[in-house]
């Protein structure tokens, strides 16, 4: 083996070593950061009613919660039902009309036998469709509350967030993607007197 060959072999070995150690260091740093973030997770901030919450795609301001036997349409159902209603203002900050607000917030902790809420547009007293950008709307979410469940005195809602990606990781398409919750909202529930026939 000549001197020249031996030196190139040494150079290559050195290059492999540097690359390997660098890769190991990067993997270790990434792992350590993940572990650190998981063990020192920042608590989700609690936001009061009336304060706007920036969720990325939407700015939402909760106004209050109440219970009642009449849904936001104003038409009493034929069978007596109880509704838990949350009023909020919603502003679409994205570039297109969207109805993706339906999955933005949820009751915390989740209650299994409560169905997903229906969303109403307050100005129409009717089921809401998409909310347009630059046109904030006053809306009402109404949960039909099961009789077996006690009505809550205080309602805790967890508000999720979304970020816009110009290129997503799978297709390279543009879109909104779910991120961690940004706020917990605690709302006192106002109880409406239930006045039924024969009472």
């Amino acid at each position, binding site marked *: 083996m000549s001197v020249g060959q031996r030196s190139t072999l040494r150079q290559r070995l050195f290059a492999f070593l540097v690359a390997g150690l660098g890769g190991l260091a990067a993997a270790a740093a990434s792992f350590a950061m993940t572990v650190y973030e998981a063990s020192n997770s920042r608590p989700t901030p609690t936001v009061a009613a009336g304060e706007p919450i920036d969720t990325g795609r939407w700015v939402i301001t909760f106004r209050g919660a109440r219970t009642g036997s009449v849904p936001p349409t104003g038409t009493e159902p034929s069978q007596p039902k109880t509704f838990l209603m949350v009023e909020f203002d919603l502003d679409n900050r994205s*570039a297109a009309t969207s109805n993706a607000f339906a999955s933005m917030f949820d009751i915390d902790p989740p209650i299994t036998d409560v169905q997903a809420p229906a969303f109403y547009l307050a100005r129409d007293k009717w089921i809401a469709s*998409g909310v*347009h*950008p*630059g*046109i904030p709307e006053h809306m009402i979410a109404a949960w039909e509350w099961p009789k077996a469940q006690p009505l809550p005195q205080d309602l805790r809602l967890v508000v999720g967030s979304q970020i816009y990606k110009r290129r997503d990781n799978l297709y390279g398409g543009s879109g909104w993607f779910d991120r961690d919750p940004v706020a917990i909202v605690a709302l006192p529930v106002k109880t409406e007197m239930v006045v039924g026939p024969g009472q």
Partner: protein
Amino acid sequence: MRTGLKETGAIIFAAAILYAMQRTTPLYSNITSPVSIAGEQGKRTDARAFALAVGDVHLARTVRIERFGQTRTYTTSGVWVLVEAAAEAKRESLTLTSAEWLGPSGLRYSLSQRISTMPAMLPAERLEPGLPKPVLMAFEVPENELAGGTVLVAPSAFTPLGEEVRVAITELAVGDIPGAVTIRRSDGPMPWTLETE
């Protein structure tokens, strides 16, 4: 020394090319975006599967709808945009389910679903080949997105590489927005009448 300079130059050149390629790669949404067919307001625009002609565009602060002897008032924080148009299928029956108002800043306003129960609303009308039908579109648009708007109409909002007719709205009295427009059913040649107050 000179070889080192050459290598550095090659690396910088390669990095520049890679960066340029990364920045200019079209988005997936661009690659699969609809094929647009430009049209003019007041003229017929022919796509392969359908044809569309956009006529008058009316603005209003509130819309009143008379149905079954009752009047319902629809308010909005923006402005109601009512687009009168005619549409026709060309090869087979179809429904144009997607229409958008593209504002001058690039914001997209889908059809307002609030008055979708009116007859002759575009997404509810089944179009037959060779039979042009009058159709009505309603949008809610903020005032600053009115002037320079474009109406985009497509059979479906989600079909990749589908057809989309784009009609730039040139005749629009943005300065003078009437307070209310009443939409009534009509038995005349048009299935509706618009009355501005």
